């Protein structure tokens, strides 16, 4: 500390040594709220200082370091080394449960693949929003399959290897069938009270579903 103030005193008469000037511009470039020109620096430094020369040394010193002395217009600033830019962002990953619409759409694709959007809508009984399908595509759980050889040649959707990996399945055929779903209590998970008149008609429907479903997996 004392030698520094000694140097400062000397600076009244002659410019401080380059090493000291280098310290000065280092501090200024660090603390300044905007890039500094060599003129800005010279104005602040003791008389006779040559910031341009000190800058050459400082730039060299920071070569390959985590920050660099860079030219911004005709001024100078300290900036993060470009290859470390990733440290300046912090990614937080949030895991959310897939929406009901997405799960249902995914389930239909898995059980009925290859399946067209119109078929999905028919099975779900509601229109499938573009967002839902896009989300599944983005997650890479579904992808486009072959076009159907029907009028309009609609695109189909199939599940991906990622999907199988995520759910721990060897193939989509390993998905439990309707009988197994029923045995597992999943088909009757909403106990239909005796007063519900709509339930009965549905029963046959499910069984019919089974054969057709397997066909789809055959290819």
């Amino acid at each position, binding site marked *: 500390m004392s030698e520094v103030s000694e140097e400062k005193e000397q600076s009244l008469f002659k410019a401080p040594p380059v090493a000291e000037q280098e310290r000065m511009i280092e501090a200024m470039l660090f603390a*300044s709220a905007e890039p500094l020109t060599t003129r800005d620096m010279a104005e602040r430094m003791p008389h006779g200082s040559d910031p341009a020369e000190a800058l050459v040394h400082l730039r060299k010193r920071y070569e390959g370091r985590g920050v660099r002395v860079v030219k911004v217009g005709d001024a100078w600033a300290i900036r993060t080394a470009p290859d470390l830019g990733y440290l300046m962002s*912090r*990614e937080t*990953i949030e895991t959310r449960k*897939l929406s009901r619409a997405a799960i249902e759409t995914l389930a239909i694709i*898995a059980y009925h693949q290859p399946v067209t959007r119109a078929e999905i809508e028919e099975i779900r*009984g509601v229109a499938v929003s573009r967002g839902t399908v896009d989300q599944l595509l983005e997650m890479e759980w579904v992808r486009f399959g072959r076009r159907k050889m029907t009028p309009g040649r609609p695109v189909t959707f199939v599940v991906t290897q990622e999907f199988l990996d995520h759910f721990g399945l060897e193939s989509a055929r390993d998905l439990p069938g309707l009988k197994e779903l029923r045995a597992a209590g999943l088909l009757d998970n909403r106990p239909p009270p005796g007063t519900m*008149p709509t339930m009965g008609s549905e029963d046959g429907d499910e069984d019919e579903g089974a054969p057709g479903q397997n066909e789809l997996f055959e290819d």
Partner: protein
Amino acid sequence: MVEDDFDRDERPVNVAERLAAEALIVDVDGFEGPLDLLLTLSRTQKVDLRKISVLELARQYLAFVEQAKALRLELAADYLVMAAWLAFLKSRLLLPPDPTEDGPSGEDLAAHLAFQLERLQAMRDCAARLMGRDRLGRDFFARGIPEDVARLRRVTYTATLLDLMQGYARIRTRDEFRPFVMDRDALFTMEQALERMRGLIGFAGTWTDIVSYLPEGFTADPGRRRSATASTFAAALELVKEGRAELRQAEVFAPIELRRRD
């Protein structure tokens, strides 16, 4: 829990106003309280605070207070309390100790006062040293152009096989798409009640409150209880009409009792 202790509610009041209000009360001739005044007076003794004559200090303080009174200066209560205490201390220091009296001796009290003065002086010295340090934003500086850390939030979605299967089951059973019907599981219909009563009436040889015929699961929830009570009552009336039971009630709002009619 921790912060709520004082004055949260009064927080928004301007700090400057409070400081001004404080200055009016506390500053007696520029002193911050009696201890500050004592400390200032002690300087006239020009000795180490540990060797200070508390007796002399008490005399000085009392003289100051007298003078303030003569000048009709408004003294804050603290100053007067201290004056009274110092007068007491003075008497303790001057008079020979009274063996019948307990409590700390005059010397103990004087020593503590000296300690307090020394401690206050020490804190003032510390404050000065602290404020004299190299300080951020004055002597040393932080980064002038901080690069903000961009916060990217990435959301990943997940689902389990069970979600998938339940989802599929939901679609295949179509309970989502059944026509809208009133949710009737809180209802106990008269048909249900009648069926139940017909089964039970054979056992009703004695008068029994019809409330005891409410089906299980319909007694706790008030809505369900109301529904079951109404339908059970209606079913009981139906049984009476059929000539299979009789009803009685002692008075208005008394229990309604039912008995098999043989």
